[in-house]
C-alpha cells in the first residue's frame, strides 16, 4: 500500500510552475467485482490525496472508483522556496500512507 513514485524536476526557478507526478500502487477496488465464490469484493479506493509544499496545502484530489487502478495524478505547483513536497493519502479501509520529494529552487 505504501508504494508510490513521485516525479518532480531536479531544479526549478522561483515563481515558475513545475510539474508534479505521483503514481500510487493501489487496486482502487470498485466494489462491483465478485470473488470466484461469487461474494462481492468491498469497495476500497483512495478517497483523498493531499500534497503540501513546505507545509502549505497546494493540491487535493478526491478520487472515486472511476479512477483507474494504480492511480496517477499530474498537476502543477508554483515554486517558492526550496523544500519538500509531502503527499498523503487514505483509502476506504482507513489505510494511510505518505511519500515525499525534495524541491531545489534556483534563486
Amino acid at each position, binding site marked *: 500500500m505504501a508504494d508510490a513514485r513521485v516525479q518532480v524536476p531536479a531544479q526549478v526557478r522561483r515563481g515558475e*510552475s513545475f510539474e508534479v507526478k505521483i503514481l500510487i500502487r493501489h487496486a482502487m477496488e*470498485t466494489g*462491483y*467485482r*465478485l470473488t470466484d465464490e461469487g461474494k*462481492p469484493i468491498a469497495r476500497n479506493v483512495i478517497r483523498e490525496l493531499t500534497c503540501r*509544499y513546505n507545509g*502549505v*496545502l*497546494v*493540491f*487535493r*484530489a*478526491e*478520487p*472515486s*472508483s*472511476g*479512477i*483507474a*487502478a494504480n*492511480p*496517477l*495524478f*499530474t*498537476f*502543477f*505547483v*508554483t515554486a517558492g522556496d526550496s523544500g519538500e513536497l509531502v503527499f498523503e493519502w487514505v483509502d476506504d479501509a482507513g489505510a494511510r500512507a505518505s511519500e515525499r520529494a525534495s524541491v531545489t529552487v534556483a534563486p
Partner: protein
Amino acid sequence: MPLLPLRALAQAEPEVAAMKAFVGNRPVRAGRLVLDIPRIADNGNVVPVRIALPGPFAPGAEVRSIHLFSEKNPVPQMAVFHFPAPVAKVEVESRVRLAGTQRIAAVATLADGTLHAATADVVVTISACIDGS
C-alpha cells in the same frame, strides 16, 4: 422528412446528468476549459485524461476546483481536484475507468464563482468491468 422518435433524439445529445446536477442553473462558459481524452479507448479500465484551463487568472478569479463527471459510470463523479493555493498553471492529468461508450464532462470552478465546462465523447471498446464479470 421522417420524424425521429423521442428516444433517438435524446440519444443524439446525451447529457451528463451529474454535471447538470452539480451546475444547477448557474451559467457555464464553454470554450476555454480543455478536456483531452482519446476519442477511442481500447481499454475502459485505463483511459488517460488531461484537463487544463489556460490562464492568466485575475486576482480573486483563480481556479478552486475541477470536477470530472461520467455519463454512464455507476459512480458519476469520477474525481474532484482542488487547488487550495492559487497556481498559475492549471493542468491535471489522471487515468479514469469508463463503463462503456459515453460522454464525459469537466467543470472548473473559479474563486469568483465562474464555471467553465467542457465535454468529450469517448468510444470504449472494452468496458471497465462493473458487473463482476
